[in-house]
């Protein structure tokens, strides 16, 4: 019989992970703070449990994918949290986009109970979660990763071990920060070119074989801006949230952020014009509006 896996946080991501794991023969137990999500579980053939502690009692592996670092703390150390039901040698796979600091704190508490933890934040979005093609950045002991590898390989195609506990979250946050910076750079620069009478497609052709290339110019601009769809299936609010995590982390690491902080500042300014649920690519349009249109 295959392993029992508990999922805490049955939202957009958690529910997809649950389905994917079940299709691969695992038995899934789950908890969510939201009642409507609890009711959805039986439809997915997932077994609802009423507290994180109950999930911990039942399962050998626990995946947490909740809202943010504070929600992680709540579901692990809070009242009826994982810590109150967990057995020795359980593995916690922390997939929330959280901070390294919080992850290390959780690690310290869980280790006292003989519980192993790795952080394993994912990227590439919901379609990749459904297809099991996520990119997963892992921090933690090699041995724990080795024991969790078959589960992670069910969920993702690129599993990169970044270092000790917390480094998965660190690299994820840094990547998101870099993505936002490169997006702002590409947007401003290409829009200036448009204002000077250059054509977007021609600019992209040249930039993408030159030193100014980034994933934003080679992938996002052709796919979402040239086509005028502006739908990358990643929201402005999530980008802003990820940026804030990166900035918080930079402060905790005592690194003074230059570009990251400027990007975060611009996202704050844009948030008065863009609703959180709007696609992140609308940033391009808003910046162009600042520039007097193109």
């Amino acid at each position, binding site marked *: 019989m295959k392993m029992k896996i508990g999922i805490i946080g049955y939202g957009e991501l958690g529910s997809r992970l649950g389905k994917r794991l079940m299709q691969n023969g695992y038995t899934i137990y789950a908890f969510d703070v939201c009642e409507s999500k609890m009711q959805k579980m039986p439809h997915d053939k997932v077994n609802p449990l009423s507290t994180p502690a109950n999930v911990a009692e039942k399962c050998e592996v626990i995946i947490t994918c909740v809202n943010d670092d504070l929600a992680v703390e709540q579901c692990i150390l809070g009242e009826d949290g994982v810590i109150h039901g967990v057995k020795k040698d359980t593995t916690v796979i922390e997939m929330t986009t959280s901070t390294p600091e919080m992850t290390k704190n959780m690690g310290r508490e869980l280790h006292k109970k003989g519980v192993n933890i790795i952080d394993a934040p994912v990227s590439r979005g919901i379609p990749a979660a459904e297809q099991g093609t996520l990119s997963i950045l892992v921090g933690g002991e090699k041995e724990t990763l080795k024991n969790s590898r078959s589960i992670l390989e069910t969920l993702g195609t*690129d599993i990169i071990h*970044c270092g000790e506990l917390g480094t998965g979250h660190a690299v994820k946050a840094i990547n998101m920060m*870099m993505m936002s*910076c490169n997006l*702002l750079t590409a947007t*401003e*620069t290409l829009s200036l070119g448009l204002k000077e009478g250059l054509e977007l497609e021609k600019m992209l052709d040249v930039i993408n074989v030159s*030193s100014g290339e980034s994933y934003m110019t080679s992938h996002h601009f052709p796919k979402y801006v040239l086509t005028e769809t502006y739908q990358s299936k990643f929201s402005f609010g999530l980008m802003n949230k990820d940026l804030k995590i990166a900035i918080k982390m930079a402060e905790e*690491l005592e690194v003074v952020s*230059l570009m990251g902080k400027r990007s975060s500042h611009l996202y704050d300014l844009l948030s008065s014009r863009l609703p959180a649920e709007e696609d992140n690519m609308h940033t391009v349009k808003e910046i162009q509006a600042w520039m007097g249109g193109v």
Partner: protein
Amino acid sequence: MDKSGFKRIGFIGLGVMGSRMCERLLLLENNLFVYDISKEAMDYFYKKGAEVADSPKDISQKCDIILTSLPNHQIVENVVLGTNGMIETISEDKIYIDLSSSTPEMTKKIGKALKEKGVKMIDAPVSRGAGAAREGTLSIMVGGEESTLEECRFILDQLGTDILQTGKLSSGHMLKALNNLMSASNLITAIEGLSMAKKAGVDPEVFTQAINASSGKSHMTTVRFEKYYLPRHFNSNFSLELMNKDLSIALEVARKKAVPMMFSSLTQEIYSIAISQGKGHEDNTRIMEVVEELTELQKNSKETAL
């Protein structure tokens, strides 16, 4: 044209880039005329078989296709429109190619003046540095009429491997400046990311691998990291000052149009710090140290640096 029907080529500006490009043009069958304010530089090419001219206007009188490779847009203006400049003798159907990193504004101005004389112009700023100029492997961004480009493609093919059409006249200069602004911004971003990763205890090689499998990647992380920044080999043969010049060209266009560049203007502020510290002549890759110093990482990271 000479007696055998070959177009005469004139070249003005025999500096670091110009002299290397001129060496490549000596390989063509066309007659080559050179001019530079340094007599020594001209003598060198005289000994190699080129003809020497005594002024820009002498070159434009004798040659069918004239190229310039000059330090900045003011000098380009002097050479073309100034006293003893090309404008005094240049005639209909001749072609002028500006290989310098000039400004789009100057290029438009010169293009307009030359057009009145029936002269065709393309702007063709080059990238990849002196090594590529010597090998004939430059990347050249070309603005101007396609038919003019085709007429002088045999020259550009001798100089570079990537001839990239950018649009109308001046778009070559504009896009080169924009490309460099993008690369500098992406670079500072990437170095900031690397600094944070190191402090978080992530191995730089592993960080690079992870980013290059993710959405934050750029030419800086996929190509330049391994070449310069991970091994800390600060030898790209391109100076901080030259990069700053390109940043200025792009941002000056924005300033004149009153277009805000709220993000990328920070890139030039960081370059200004480097230049005010007297590092202008140093290699552009040393911006890494400037960023590390600003973010207070350097003193803590010596033991972790590769």
